[in-house]
């Protein structure tokens, strides 16, 4: 009797472990398989050899130093955005307004650059980053106060503020900040060369960008997983009312998470101005906020995973730039692949949860 019991227990435990391993593998492999299937089908409909396309998507960003530099310059603001979004995601908020926060960060970063172009560049950069961070934060707090003060769902408040932000950017570009001579919707005049973030050799890679991104990500990780504040934010995200009754100031924590995310988005916007475009353009965010949202849906509130996923996503996007020339297909397949990855991850997550419940 006893032996049987022990035996029974043993087998059940080993099967449990095997199931665990299978779970873990499935969680990693299924999204990739699903995304590959979907993207391959899409590629086949336009008569392209999928392997050629994948080769460029996966390795194109590493083919030349210039492309690698571009990848880093895209990954940096993406890491900032996705890192910031892990804060709001932990607090249970969908910060769809992050695009607008990036744009406002970029606009705010332009202000000191236009006002005091004669300051020594390092000082000016610091002021510009401070302005950018403040701009993003203010825009995030606006969405937060609409949600927490007036009960407007943060998704719609954020979306509305996104459109408002790009409206403001367009207005500035065509109006008060238009370039000398003729106004053009392509952007403001380029910044003077000495105000561009210094780059490595002739590459477009400015080392300051990845440094800022990585330091910020480490801080986010520390705050979210090693500090009481992070624990409280997570508690609010899991059950706001319960956390509130246990003495966690839920509203305050949500607002702080939004402010933190806005701050990082503002830094991303500043990087776009100082390191990438060197001017204000209508599409100054180039979609990093939206891609950041995709990243955070994959990694959930785990900042460590932001780094590899953001690098992979940036690799796809930079690699895809070569597709129109080499294979004659549109570069938006990178976005399809990114979206398909997240969709497949959601499917496999759902299947796992269903199996566990069954």
């Amino acid at each position, binding site marked *: 009797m006893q032996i049987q019991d022990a035996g029974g227990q043993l087998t059940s435990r080993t099967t449990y472990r095997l199931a665990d391993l299978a779970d873990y593998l499935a969680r990693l492999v299924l999204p990739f398989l699903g995304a590959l299937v979907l993207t391959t089908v899409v590629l086949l409909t336009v008569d392209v050899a999928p392997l050629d396309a994948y080769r460029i998507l996966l390795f194109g960003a590493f083919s030349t130093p210039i492309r690698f530099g571009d990848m880093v310059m895209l990954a940096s603001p993406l890491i900032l955005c996705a890192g910031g979004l892990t804060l709001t995601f932990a607090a249970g908020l969908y910060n769809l307004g992050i695009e607008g926060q990036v744009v406002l960060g970029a606009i705010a970063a332009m202000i000191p650059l236009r006002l005091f172009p004669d300051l020594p560049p390092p000082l000016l950069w610091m002021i510009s980053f401070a302005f950018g961070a403040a701009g993003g934060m203010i825009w995030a707090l606006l969405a937060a106060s609409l949600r927490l003060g007036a009960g*407007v769902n943060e998704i*719609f408040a954020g*979306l509305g503020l996104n*459109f*408002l932000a790009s409206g403001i950017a367009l207005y500035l570009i065509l109006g008060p900040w238009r370039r000398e001579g003729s106004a053009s919707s392509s952007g403001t005049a380029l910044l003077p060369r000495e105000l561009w973030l210094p780059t490595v050799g002739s590459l477009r890679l400015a080392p300051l960008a990845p440094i800022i991104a990585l330091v910020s990500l480490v801080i986010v990780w520390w705050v979210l997983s090693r500090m009481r504040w992070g624990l409280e934010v997570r508690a609010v995200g899991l059950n706001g009312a319960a956390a509130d009754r246990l003495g966690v100031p839920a509203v305050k924590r949500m607002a702080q998470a939004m402010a933190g995310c806005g701050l990082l988005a503002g830094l991303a916007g500043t990087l776009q101005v100082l390191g990438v475009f060197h001017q204000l353009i209508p599409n100054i965010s180039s979609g990093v906020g939206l891609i950041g949202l995709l990243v955070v*849906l994959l990694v959930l509130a785990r900042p460590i995973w932001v780094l590899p996923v953001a690098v992979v996503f940036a690799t796809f996007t930079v690699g895809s730039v070569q597709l129109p020339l080499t294979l004659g*297909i549109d570069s938006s397949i990178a976005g399809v692949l990114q979206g398909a990855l997240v969709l497949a991850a959601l499917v496999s997550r759902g299947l796992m949860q269903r199996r566990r419940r069954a």
Partner: protein
Amino acid sequence: MNQLAIDLGAVLAAASPLIFATMGALLSERSGVINLSLDGTIMLGAMGGFTVALVTSSVPLGFGAAALIGAAIALILCILSLTLGQSQTAVGFVLALLGIELSSFLGAPVVRVPGPSVPFLPIPLLADLPIVGVIFFRHNLLIYLSFLLVPFIWWMLFHTRMGLTVRALGERPAAAFARGVPVTRMRYLMCILGGALVGIAGAAYSLDLRQGWSYRHTFGMGWIALAIVIFGGWRPWRVAFGCYLFAALEIVALRSQRTMAGVPTQVFQVAPFVLMILVLALVNLVSSPQALRRIASLPPILRGPVAMLVSRLAVAAPAALGQRFERP
């Protein structure tokens, strides 16, 4: 006078895709499913509808394809959220982005290719009426259908047994379940029907209002439609009013480019969003407990009208919107 009638007619025509999109979203949201993929669905519906119409040179087939695309995206949303228990917000957002990117990728070969469009169909006799004829009866079949869709959805939701069930799904799914309504299956049905309408809205752009296809052809219209549904408090007539208001703003913006050089057109482009936020904030503020207490302490002459105004203004979202339903 005649110019005004022509302008009003143009507003009615310009709002027709939004009417289809918002009525689709309304149907879905009233049953408790928020379809955040609208922007991607409209984009893919526009691209797919135009391509099919171009290849088959049949406009109805184009609309059919767009409806199928919309229904398929809604089906994916339902499987992932209703069956597999994932967040409707997350799934809808991913589908929106995926739809946009897919439309750019698959639509690249038909960019700026001239194609078929919905034929002009003035209604005999009625079209010759002064003013009224110009406003209402010199359009095409699609726009006439958009006129009929709003009363139909209103009638369906508020005057049929089916509509009662749909509203119960959005407000008290547990109660509907207790009465023997298959909650999840009905939500699937409503969301898919709504998705088909949203797909048709896409084709309404590429085959009628903005004929043809270009990169991000219908940019932002899905988000605008979602905003208008909230602006309209999930009530068909008010939502339709929101659509016409937005279309009117768009046409004013177009005119102002010529006449009011001082006012930047960006103001009009972002106006619907700012309006939506303000209306939402106002509605939530006037219906807050503090505000209601303040109304109760008003002098009696004011209290009645103010309370009525607030109850008219403040429309809550369907209570179970976006929430999961577990069988009790």
